[in-house]
C-alpha cells in the first residue's frame, strides 16, 4: 500500500521569514559577540541638528529653537548644514574595518590627504540601541587605537584620530542567511578643522581628565581639568580651595582645535608674511624722512638762523601729541636757540607720488594739536590733527603756510577689530582709505533719539525696525 505524505501541513523549509525570528536573533547575537571580541572602540560624537545661521531666523535659514532634530536643514538655499550641534556626550560603539596603507597623495597645500577613506562596519542593533538612532552622515567618530603619541609637538598630548561619516549603507558582508542585515558600513573621511565641526573642536583636548565643576573642598592634581565660570582650566600645581583664575595653579585648558589643528601654525605663517610685507613697505608712497632738504635764501646760499634767545619754550611733540625727548632725556623745545644753525626748509626737495608724511623736513621739531601754537617763530612747524589727513603747517613769519598732508597709509587690509589688544594682529594699524572708511566703521549716530550704527548693509539700511 502506497504511503502518502501531506506536504501542505508541513512548514516550508526557508531560512527567510517575514518576521525576524529566532534564527535572526541567534545570528545577530553571534555577530554582536564577534564585534565585542574582535572590534575596536569607536567613540561617536552624535550629530543632533543644525544650529543658528548668521543670517538669523529667515525663511531660507529657519531657526529650530528647542527642536534639535537631525532631520532639520539649516540653509534651504544652499542646502547645507554649516553650524552643527553635537551631543556633548560621547557614545562608545564597536566597529571593524580593514586597516590599509595610506597613500600620502598630498594635494595643493601638501595637507589634504586624498586616499585616507576608511569603511567601518557597525552592528546595527548595537548602534541603534546606544545612539538612539542609526549612525548618519555628519556623525564624527574617534578611533582611540589610532592615537599618535609621538607627533612633533611637545609630547604633552597624544593626537587623536577623528573621522567624519559621509555615507552609511548596509554592509554586504552583514547579511545573514536569513536575508536580514546585521551590519552598517560607514564611509569615513578624516576630519578637517572646519566651521561644521566647531562645537567639537572648541571642546577641551584632554576630555579624559575633566573633573567637572570646581569644588572648593576637592583637591586637584596637575593635568586635572575643572570648570569655573563657564571656563575650563587645567591644574598646573596641586591645589585645594583656591578659585580660578590663579596663574600659580591654573591655566586655560587647551581646546581640541589648539592641539589638533594646523590653524595655529598657519596663522603664525600668515603673521610672518604680513610682518615681512610691512617691513618691505610699511606705508603707501615713499619714505623721504631720512633725506635732507637744503634751505636756500634768495641768493642761493644756505640760509642760516642767527638766534641769541631761547625764550620760546614751546614743547615739541610727535604726531600723537606726546612730548619729545633727546638722547639725554631732556625735553625738546621748538625754540630757536644759540645752537640753531640752519633755517628749516620751506619745502620738500623730494616730491612725488604719496611722499607727504606730516613730518617736517630734516627732522625739524614740530608740535601737534588741534590748534596752532601761540607766538610762533619763523620756520616753526605744527601738525594739525583736526585735519584728515593730518596737515603740516610752517610759520613763515607772518602766517601759517600749508606744507603737506600726511597721506602715507598702511596697506594691510586690517580693521579695528583685528588690531585691538588680544586680537590676531594686535598693535598693527588699520587700513584707512576712502573704501575702508565704509568698511572699518564702528561709528554710531544718534538719529531721532535712536542710536543707529553708521555701517549698514545696502540691502538693510533704513528698513523699518521694531521699537526697542
Amino acid at each position: 500500500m502506497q504511503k502518502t505524505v501531506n506536504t501542505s501541513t508541513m512548514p516550508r523549509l526557508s531560512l527567510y521569514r517575514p518576521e525576524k525570528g529566532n534564527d535572526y536573533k541567534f545570528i545577530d547575537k553571534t555577530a554582536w559577540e564577534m564585534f565585542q571580541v574582535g572590534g575596536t572602540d569607536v567613540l561617536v560624537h552624535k550629530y543632533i541638528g543644525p544650529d543658528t545661521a548668521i543670517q538669523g531666523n529667515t525663511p531660507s535659514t529657519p531657526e529650530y529653537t528647542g527642536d534639535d532634530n537631525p532631520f532639520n536643514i539649516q540653509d534651504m538655499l544652499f542646502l547645507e548644514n554649516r553650524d552643527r550641534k553635537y551631543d556633548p556626550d560621547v557614545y562608545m560603539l564597536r566597529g571593524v574595518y580593514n586597516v590599509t596603507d595610506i597613500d600620502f597623495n598630498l594635494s595643493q597645500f601638501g595637507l589634504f590627504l586624498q586616499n585616507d577613506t576608511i569603511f567601518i562596519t557597525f552592528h546595527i542593533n548595537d548602534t541603534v540601541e546606544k545612539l538612539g538612532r542609526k549612525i548618519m552622515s555628519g556623525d564624527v567618530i574617534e578611533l582611540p587605537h589610532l592615537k599618535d603619541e609621538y607627533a612633533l609637538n611637545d609630547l604633552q598630548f597624544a593626537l587623536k584620530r577623528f573621522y567624519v561619516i559621509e555615507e552609511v549603507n548596509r554592509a554586504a558582508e552583514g547579511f545573514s542567511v536569513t536575508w536580514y542585515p546585521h551590519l552598517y558600513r560607514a564611509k569615513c573621511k578624516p576630519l578637517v578643522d572646519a566651521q561644521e565641526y566647531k562645537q567639537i573642536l572648541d571642546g577641551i583636548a584632554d576630555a579624559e581628565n575633566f573633573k567637572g565643576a570646581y569644588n572648593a573642598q576637592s583637591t586637584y592634581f596637575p593635568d586635572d581639568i575643572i570648570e569655573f565660570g563657564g571656563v575650563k582650566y587645567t591644574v598646573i600645581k596641586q591645589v585645594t580651595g583656591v578659585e580660578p583664575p590663579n596663574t600659580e595653579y591654573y591655566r586655560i585648558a587647551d581646546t581640541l582645535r589648539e592641539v589638533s589643528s594646523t590653524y595655529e601654525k598657519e596663522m603664525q605663517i600668515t603673521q610672518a608674511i604680513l610682518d615681512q610685507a610691512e617691513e618691505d613697505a610699511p606705508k603707501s608712497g615713499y619714505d623721504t624722512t631720512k633725506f635732507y632738504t637744503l634751505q636756500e635764501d634768495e641768493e642761493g646760499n644756505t640760509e642760516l638762523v642767527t638766534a641769541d634767545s631761547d625764550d620760546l619754550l614751546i614743547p615739541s611733540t610727535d604726531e600723537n601729541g606726546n612730548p619729545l625727548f633727546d638722547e639725554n632725556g631732556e625735553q625738546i623745545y621748538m625754540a630757536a636757540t644759540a645752537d640753531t644753525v640752519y633755517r628749516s626748509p620751506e619745502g620738500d626737495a623730494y616730491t612725488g607720488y604719496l611722499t607727504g608724511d606730516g613730518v617736517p623736513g630734516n627732522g625739524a621739531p614740530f608740535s601737534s594739536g588741534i590748534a596752532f601754537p601761540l607766538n610762533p617763530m619763523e620756520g616753526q612747524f605744527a601738525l594739525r590733527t583736526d585735519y584728515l589727513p593730518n596737515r603740516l603747517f610752517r610759520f613763515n613769519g607772518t602766517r601759517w603756510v600749508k606744507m603737506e598732508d600726511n597721506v602715507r597709509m598702511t596697506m594691510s587690509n586690517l580693521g579695528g577689530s583685528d588690531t585691538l589688544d588680544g586680537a590676531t594682529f594686535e598693535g598693527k594699524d588699520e587700513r584707512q582709505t576712502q573704501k575702508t572708511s565704509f568698511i572699518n566703521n564702528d561709528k554710531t549716530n544718534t538719529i531721532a533719539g535712536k542710536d543707529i550704527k553708521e555701517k549698514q548693509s545696502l540691502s538693510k539700511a533704513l528698513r523699518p525696525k521694531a521699537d526697542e
Partner: protein
Amino acid sequence: MDFFYDGQIRRYVTQFMRIFIGFKYEAGDGEQRSVPVMYGDMSRQVANIIKENSENKMPSVPRVACYISSLEMDTTRLSDATFTSKMHIRERKWDTDSSEVVYTGEQGANYTVERLMPTPFKLRMKADIWSSNTDQKLQLLEQILVLFNPALEIQTTDNYIDWTSLSSIYLSTLNFTSRTIPAGTDSDIDVCTVEFEMPVWISPPAKVKKLGIIQTIIANIFTEDGDVQSLEEAVYNERKGNAQVNVNARYPILLFKSNNGQDYDYDVTLVDPWQAVVDMGLEKEYKTGNKKLDWNVILEKLAGGWTASSYVYFKQPNGYEMAATFAVNPVDPSILVVTFDQDTIPTNTSIDSSISGVAARGTIDAIIDPFKFNPIDHWGGASSIPEGTRYLLLETIGDPNNTDGPEGWKGSDGSTQTSYELVENSIVEWDGSKWVEIFDPDNADDPTYIQNLKTGIQYKWTDGQWLKSFEGEYDSGMWRLDLNP
C-alpha cells in the same frame, strides 16, 4: 657676470599675499575667525612639519593659497633699454655712535643714484580660496572682491629711489568652484580660484655715486616739440633769485656761446618772442619780419636804438653783474651777439701743474668721458700725448684693486700704477709718463672756475658739481640793458 639678487619677485609675491590677510568668516555662533594665507606650492617636508609629522593633525579650512601662475615679458611696455635716470639725494646725517640709526637735523652724505631702465613683465598670480561650505565662500568673496575696482595698488618697498616699487593688481578671471555640477562631490572642500595680473618691473642694480655732476652740457636747447627747455634747474640748480627787477628787460632770455670763434662772444635770444611781441605791440613788425623778432626793433622800441657803447648786464646768483657790449647779428637779427668785458668774466682759477717748471693755468683741454675716450689711441701712442694735457673727467675710471687697469689710461711704460683711480669730476694732467690728478673734487675750492679750451665755455665748481659758469637762461629781472650809458 657677477652675482646679484634682490628678491624682486619675492617681494611682489609677499605684497600680493598681504592683500588677502585680515579677512574673516563668521560662524553661526557669531565668532569671527581670521583666514590663514599661505603660499600654495609648499615643499612636502614643510607640509609635514606643519602637520607635526602626524597624520592625525587636522588641516584647517577656510584658507587662501597664493601662487604664481605665469611670468611673461610685457612687450607693450618696453622702452629704451639704455635709458639711465639720475637722482640726486642729500641724506640727513646719522649718528654712528648709536646702535640704531638716528638721523640728525644736519646734512649728511650726498649721492647721485643712476638707475637703468628696468624690464617690464606681467606677473599672473592665483589665489585659491578653500572653503568648507558655500556660504563661507561667499562671505570671503564678498569682502575680497570689493577691493578691486578696477585695480588695487601695491608697493614692494617705500624706498624713494625705487622707481619700480609701485604696481597694480587687476582681477582677471574667477573660477568659482572646483566641483562639477551636479555635485556628486567626493570632498567637503571646495576651491574658488581667482586669477590676478600685475604689471611689474625687474630691475638691475643701481649705481650709487657721490653727488657731483656736470648738469648742463647742452647740445640742444630745444625739446622734440620745438619748445625751449626749461633751463632754470639745469643752470641755476633750482636757485631762482628775485633780485631787483630791471624794468626795461622783462623777458627771459637765453645766453649761449656763439659759434663765431671769438672767445668772449655769446648769443642772446628771447625765450618766448611772442611774449615780447604782444607786450610791446609789435605784431605788425613780427608778421612782416619772417616771424622772427628783430632785436633792432626791440631796442628801438625800448630806447630809440643802441650805440656801440651800450651795455647789457647779466646778474649772477651771487649778485655780481657781468657786463658786455653788444651788436645785432646782421645775418639773423633775432640774435644779439654780446661781447663780454673780460674784466667782468669770473677769472679762471689757476690750477698748478704736476710738472715742475710748467706754469699754472685755469684752463683744460677738453671734457671727456673716460669710458669713451682713449687718449693713447687719440694721440697715437702714450709717448705722443703732449705733456701738460689736461682733461676733466665725467666718470670715474680705474680701480685701485685692479692691477691691470684700463688700457687707454695706462702710463707710457704700459703699466698700471698703484692706487690707479681717476675719479669723476677731477681734472687730470699728463706729466709725460702718466696721468696725475691735479684737481681733487673732494678738496677743491668752491667756487673754482675753469675754461674749456675746446669750446671756450667757462665752468665753475660749486656745491659738489660742475656748472656752466654763466650760460643759460636769465629770467626777467636777471638781466638789463643800459642803452645810453
